[in-house]
């Protein structure tokens, strides 16, 4: 399924069978918003950007040890990720 690939989700062919049907019906249902009428102000009019100084905030920085404590595979304090390139 195209959406499954886009969202990096493994979907078995068994799941694909019913998921496609369910998603189709849901998309059809939510599609009725195209019928909505009315003059709406743009969301941007009421929103403002919030920024903070680009400074390190000591109280909520994780140490390297804390940061990698949840990883299954680490190497010398680094995260280990699946290979993207093959070695030639």
């Amino acid at each position, binding site marked *: *399924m195209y*959406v*499954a690939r*886009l*969202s*990096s*989700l*493994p*979907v078995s062919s068994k*799941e694909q069978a019913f*998921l496609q049907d*369910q*998603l189709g*019906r*849901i*998309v059809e*249902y*939510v*599609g*009725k*918003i*195209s*019928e*909505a009428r*009315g003059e*709406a*102000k*743009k*969301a941007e009019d009421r929103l403002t950007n*919030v*920024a*903070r100084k680009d400074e390190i905030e000591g109280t*909520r920085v*994780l140490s390297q040890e*804390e*940061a*990698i*404590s*949840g*990883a*299954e595979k680490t190497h010398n304090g680094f*995260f*280990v*990720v*699946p290979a993207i390139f093959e070695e030639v």
Partner: protein
Amino acid sequence: MREILDGLKKKSFSVAEVVDSYKGRIETFDQEIKAFLTTTFERAHEEAEIADKRIADYGDEAFKQFPLLGLPVAHKDIYLTEGVRTTAGSKVLENYIPQYSATVVERLKSAGAILIGKTNLDAWAHGSSGENSDFFPTRNPWNKEFVPGGSSSGSAAAVAAGFVPFATGTDTGGSIRLPAAFCGVVGFKPTYGRVSRYGVVAMASSLDSMGHLTRAVEDAALVLNITAGKDEFDATSLDDPISDYSKSLGEGVKGLKIGLPKEYFSGGLSKKVEEKVKEAAAVLEKLGAELLEVSLPHTEYAISVYYIIQTAEVSSNLARYDGVRYGRDRSYFGEEAKRRIMLGTHVLSSGYKGQYYNQAKRVQNLVRQDFQKVFDKVDLVLAPVSPTPPFKLGTKTDDPLEMYLSDVFSVSANLAGLPALSLPCGFTKDNLPIGMQLIGPALSEDLLFRVGHTYQSETDWHERRPKL
């Protein structure tokens, strides 16, 4: 909660005894209710000893510094708790130990509350019944064949079953108010941004509201006094000053105008729910409020708008779970999570974004405007929470769309960023709870508490207890 605090002050019992009492109830009854994913009894006992020492050393002064001193709390397992496993109800995070705590968790801890455990939920807060937990479904304490509602299923069941005096929840489309209604407890959703979202597993970042469940409205006000307020770690938290939310509780409802939206009292609303909600409105009218019929014309699009915007944000927020830095890989996502991620990806994808996501944002503004117009005429809105009373486990799990429609009356408050309070207002003839909700303008939490407290002074639905 006030009774416990008074008892501790008078030294009628100790914090250790309070903790033991709740622990005993959990050990006896939770095997069948299954409200908890993790319990933290040992650490609770240590904290109880520290609390008892504080009371011994400082007496009443201790309660001034720690307003919730000695009160056990359960956190929905979507709130990060440092050193205590946090799963978000998902196999992806089954073994995840957070290295920091959510702001809400920290604030409650600093106020003296004692963590007794993490409650069950629909995985990633995706659900309206509790049945989407990757581990097991929580049961409704009023009848174990029925759902407790979701996604804060464990928190609602825990408060209803007397496992804790209060529990935290999150409400993105009704996930506090619906389980509160199904379990006969008070469910509070603050104005978006009133309570910090920092350290909570994000579902839909523009809709997530951090609230809580209690037995009485006055307890909900006590908790909000601790959790509300600006947090520099949450850029969406509001600068607006907080008040003492308990102050105006007793001011009554004379002269208040309460709107009943006609679109919420038609179509799929069950007769029993309609009857009980209208009776609740009549109580408030008897106490001096004026009832008016109002209209929220874009209600019919609310679910569609919600399931487009929410799933779009979910698809983005759940992209981080790749199993590299923590947790397991994406093959461990449950069916509902996959459904929502794919739906969200679709409505944001090239060629579809204009028709779905952008249009949904436009219609969201129409929903907001509906409420703004209504609040020019009335002070608050009264409505049902769920279109039906609690249903049996397994009855809506075959059709996701049918499950989504459970949210028809709850999502609009999230789309508009408004505060809402769900209150028990009756029972079905099978002794299952029915709830109603009050929705107010932004930052009107004290008004909602005032009306809710007045209602609870006149009724006793909230004092009933399930037989476990």
